[in-house]
């Protein structure tokens, strides 16, 4: 009896353990950084930045035609943090031993866990410029990441063939204009230096060398006609009426909303124009937020400064479908005249954004309360 009891108990224990192990293996969250292997991250340039989970930073390498995921190993949670760094380019220049005019700052991202700021830059302006990814802490401490030995993975962007074998390098590049990590996929927009035709690319993460990512053809309604695949300059994921959208700013046209559900491999997607941000102007960065029960999108522009778009009725606003309704349709917006020379915006938390402003030879980082 005792032996039978012991056997039954052992079987029950084994079964329980196996079930527990199974459950744990199914539900244990996968650490996005754990799949990265240490070594030299062979970046040719450091451009667009965005964070994935677990402190993984995606760096767009337009010259190398690749995207590199870096483990920042920066995962200590901080609820919020304010940063105010004046003369960032001068500080970086000093650390890497060049004059400030040889530092080109390309993009900025805030680590959503630690709230530390990461800046991509180039050391030098020529073809031998070295890529930099720099961590900026709230204390003002500036530290370039050592790219020689860092856990990383990369995925190559499919590029056009070079038909001239005598040419030293393929002259074609795709400048990665923006990236966002959404539902396990990295969405990437780019602009070729040769053809106008551009695609939005969706790359699953962890990167799989066999899967180069899916290209989607994005179209949007433009004044009763359909537009060709213009390059997207900047975009942001956004919820409208419970449905997920991408809000995209095209190089030739105003703000467009595209339902996320439509972004399927090989799909031809029709977007809707929702705002016109002015002639001779290019949106640079967008930060969506909620304040006092209302929804807004803060948008930095090349020419028109920073504007705050009223987004409460974005789901139902009359789309801009004719040039004659530009001034009466689409979402309304206010100009934020207190913010000048803004080059980049990034979300810090629900109530704050990071602003990168620059005048020649002087780049500043500052956390602001969302207006």
């Amino acid at each position, binding site marked *: 009896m005792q032996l039978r009891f012991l056997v039954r108990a052992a079987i029950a224990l084994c079964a329980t353990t196996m079930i527990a192990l199974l459950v744990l293996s199914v539900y244990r969250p996968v650490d996005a950084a754990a799949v990265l292997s240490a070594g030299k991250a062979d970046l*040719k340039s450091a451009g667009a930045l965005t964070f994935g989970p677990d402190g993984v930073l995606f760096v767009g390498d337009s*010259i190398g035609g690749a995207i590199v995921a870096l483990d920042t190993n920066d995962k200590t949670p901080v609820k919020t943090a304010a940063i105010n760094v004046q003369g960032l380019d001068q*500080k970086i*220049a*000093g*650390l*890497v*031993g*060049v*004059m*400030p005019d040889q530092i*080109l700052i390309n993009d900025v991202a805030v680590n959503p866990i630690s709230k530390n700021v990461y800046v991509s830059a180039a*050391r*030098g*302006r*020529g*073809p*031998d*410029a*070295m890529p930099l990814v720099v961590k900026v802490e709230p204390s003002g401490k*500036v530290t*370039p990441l050592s790219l020689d030995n860092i856990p990383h993975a990369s995925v190559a962007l499919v590029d*056009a063939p*070079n*038909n*001239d074998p005598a040419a*030293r*390098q393929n*002259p*074609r*590049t795709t*400048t990665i204009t923006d990236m966002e990590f959404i539902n396990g996929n990295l969405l990437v927009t780019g*602009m*070729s*230096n*040769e*053809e*106008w*035709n551009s695609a939005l690319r969706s790359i699953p993460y962890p990167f799989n060398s066999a899967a180069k990512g899916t290209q989607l*053809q994005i*179209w949007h309604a433009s*004044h009763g*006609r*359909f*537009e*060709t695949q213009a390059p997207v300059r900047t975009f942001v994921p956004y919820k409208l009426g419970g449905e997920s959208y991408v809000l995209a700013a095209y*190089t*030739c*046209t*105003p703000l467009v909303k595209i339902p996320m559900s439509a972004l399927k491999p090989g799909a*031809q997607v029709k977007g809707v124009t929702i705002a*016109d941000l*002015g*002639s*001779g102007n*290019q949106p640079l960065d967008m930060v969506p937020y909620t304040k006092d029960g209302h929804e807004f999108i803060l948008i930095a522009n090349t*020419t028109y400064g920073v504007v705050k778009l009223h987004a409460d009725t974005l789901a139902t606003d009359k789309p801009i479908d*004719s*040039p004659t309704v*530009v001034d009466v349709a689409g979402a309304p917006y206010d100009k934020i005249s207190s913010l000048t020379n803004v080059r980049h915006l990034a979300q810090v938390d629900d109530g704050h954004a990071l602003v990168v402003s620059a005048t020649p030879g002087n780049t500043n980082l500052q956390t602001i309360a969302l207006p």
Partner: protein
Amino acid sequence: MRPQLHILAIVLVLGTIARAQAVSIQLDSGAFRVTGWQAPATPPAAGWVSVFSLYAGTADAPAMLGNYSVDGGTLVFRPRYPLAAGVKYRAVFRQPGRTPIERSFDGPTRAAAPATRVERVYPSADVLASNTLRLYVYFSAPVSRGEVAARLHILDGTGKELKDVLLPGQELWDPNNQRLTMTFDPGRIKRGLESNSKMGPPIAEGQRYTLVIDRGWPDAQGVPLASDYHKEFRGGPPVRVPPTPKQWKVTPPRAGTSAPLVVEFGRSMNYPLLQRMLQVAGPGGRVDGTIAVEGNETSWRFTPRMPWTAGAYQLMVDTDLEDASGNRIDQPFDIDVFEKVTEHLTTRTINVPFNIR
């Protein structure tokens, strides 16, 4: 005894001074060394940077990043990044209670004489369609990025600079920094958009313009260009109809010769795309050869490596090929019918047959 002590003290003091004076900072193969000072095996509590640091430029910059090592008693600093041309580096050696020792070093020397120039610009014609989409500038050697706003100007017929002609803040480069791609503001090109209705096209038909690239543009070595570059052009009518291979004039050469195959488009095409979006296939498969673009990008000449053999050939046209106004094969830049798009997307190449006899 006292005189002997004095002598000893003097000797010691002189010895110390001599030793202090002997401390010097040397730059050797990219590494900075503190000679004449016996470095302890382990760094002080505040790190070697508290003893010996390097600064770029004269401004109040943080100490440069690098690795410290003690090599046979000599403290060595190796900068993490190579020294750059045109930068003055300041090395400072500090010891408690003593005046810091400083020495300045120049980065590698630059080429003295300006030699880089603008070689060519596309579209190369003197008359540009008012909806011209892209501007390509070829330099003779690599140049610096980030200079367009200050160095590239488009002037109207009176010499006044026009600010809103090109897409703002968007320089696109080849990997070697020798070819710049700029885009005329597509919001002004595309009909019906606010920019187009308020400002008109970037180039107005009948108006005169000058593209100016000023010689202050630093090349990759930081040396200015050899000369200014000017290209005068006039605005022509827009080109709205897409290029259609069926309408191209294809002139086949004779079999047994290495004469070029000539394709005439009847309009200016996008120069870089002509280098890779047209191919020739014959009875033996793809034909190897060299490409020449002529007649202000209206003509494409293909010279085979081996003489032509008689037979049926195809000119294979990638449907992403654009004319100078961004119109793709059978698809205009700014008008599109969705149903036709589906058709277009499934057709990646169009073959134009021709025979060689």
